């Protein structure tokens, strides 16, 4: 009884702001109120045709893909080294590579701002790319590392015994076994970058502005239902990415089990 009451309250608390945003996106009024006086699609159609939201959306997607790819290129070999080889100071190196997780992103953002202007890169896409790669690298590493630690080293040894050189055994044996970790890690990295505000707020210029920054700027100047509409579009996109992953993993597993047979 108490448990049911608690769960109802906790569920309501967790979902309340999301439901409110979803409902306000369909308001017919020109102002934000809850519950809305009537319902229409005017704000959704308006936002979808508004380049001041659609261009940042494209920027965010591009940045997320770039940061996830860069993080994968850096993190996959590092995870392999940490999981397989008996390396000295492996624990210290691992906690160093994971350390950006525990630092407030705002501090990293300020530091990067000084640093990149010193290097002459300035703000804009380059700064955002470096900043987001630093932010998402630990997520990528953690996910790949979890999979790499579970892989049986006998597989690689078998490939070696059968005469495969290290490169071939990496492509045909190691990489396929790591694939679920790499895909999940890259997706996670994409979502983290897609959601990141602190670095994006300081680093982005007008041309490279990301979607969260565009929404934040819009809230600062006009508090209208357009924010709810673009937020709803963002929520739907994130859920679509997650469903795609679920589908991909389902298919992937199907293919794996067939290969084993």
């Amino acid at each position, binding site marked *: 009884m108490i448990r049911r009451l608690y769960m109802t309250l906790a569920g309501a608390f967790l979902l309340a702001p999301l439901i409110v945003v979803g409902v306000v996106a369909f308001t017919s009024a020109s102002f934000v109120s809850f519950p809305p006086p009537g319902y229409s699609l005017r704000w959704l159609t308006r936002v979808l045709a508004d380049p001041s939201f659609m261009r940042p959306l494209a920027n965010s997607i591009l940045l997320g893909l770039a940061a996830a790819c860069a993080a994968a290129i850096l993190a996959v*070999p590092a995870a392999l080294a940490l999981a397989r080889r008996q390396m000295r100071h492996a624990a210290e190196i691992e906690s160093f590579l994971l350390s950006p997780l525990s630092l407030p992103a705002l501090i990293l953002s300020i530091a990067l701002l000084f640093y990149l202007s010193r290097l002459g890169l300035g703000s804009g896409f380059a700064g955002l790319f470096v900043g987001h790669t630093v932010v998402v690298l630990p997520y990528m590493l953690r996910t790949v590392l979890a999979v790499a630690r579970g892989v049986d080293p006998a597989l690689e040894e078998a490939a070696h015994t059968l005469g495969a050189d290290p490169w071939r055994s990496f492509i045909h044996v190691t990489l396929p076994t790591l694939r679920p970790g790499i895909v999940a890690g890259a997706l996670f990295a994409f979502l983290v970058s897609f959601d990141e505000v602190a670095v994006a707020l300081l680093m982005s210029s007008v041309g490279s502005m990301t979607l969260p920054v565009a929404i934040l700027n819009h809230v600062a100047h006009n508090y209208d239902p357009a924010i709810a509409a673009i937020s709803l579009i963002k929520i739907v996109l994130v859920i679509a990415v997650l469903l795609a992953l679920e589908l991909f993993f389902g298919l992937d597993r199907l293919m794996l089990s067939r290969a084993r047979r």
Partner: protein
Amino acid sequence: MRRWTAALLIGPAVLFLVGGFVGPLTLALGESLRGGIGPYVRIFGDSYYLEVIAATLALSGTVTLAALAVGYPYALILARAQGWAKTVLLFLLVAPLLVNVVVRSFGWMVIFGRSGLVNAALDLVGLPKLDLLNSWTAIGIALVHVLLPFMVLSIAATLEDLDPALEEAAATLGARPLRRFIHIVAPLSLHGAVTGAILVFALCMGSFVTVMMMGDNRTMVLPLLVYQQLSVAGDGVFAAALGMVLLATVLAVFWLQARAVRTLTP
């Protein structure tokens, strides 16, 4: 040869973080000290900045305790749920994480706003409207919402590892549920609670978007001050110094809690 391969594999990631993480932080520390310790004297000599630091610590502490109080029962139920119920509980918990902090704060603005959900409900029962936005309470509630999943997931992870046989043994020996909780479940999940608390506290110390959206001049926190010094006042050196104070505070909390974990866990 083997060591050489390992270095080659791990080198790029390490070099990237040295260049893109350690380098910038060192430079920012240097930048804050470029004109001597002046900025730090200004921070620690001015009661306004000290009050902002105290308010930030108080907010983070309160949010952490609230997240612990709300999150512990959730973690307990989540860890013991099976099958379908577990999926629903996990989805409920993770769904807000997938929504941007800007969007979630906007949602709370709509709930607490003058023509929002709370005031509509108050109006319905004939009570006067409240101005809830721009208050520490509203900011605190929104921050608990933003950070709760981190707390619950940390605690649930330790509860999942808990051997159910321990509790069964205690029950067989006649211990009532409350005693079983106090003597078995609580001590053994302490580690997860401390981990969750550290995470929530550190994340809260760095949160400024929610405060920026939902607060006003009276509700100032350290990270927001850093951001404003940089973007509004354009004082990079002072912003860097404030950022270093924020960093030092977070690191001090990590250190204190690491010590607490060492003394608490046998």
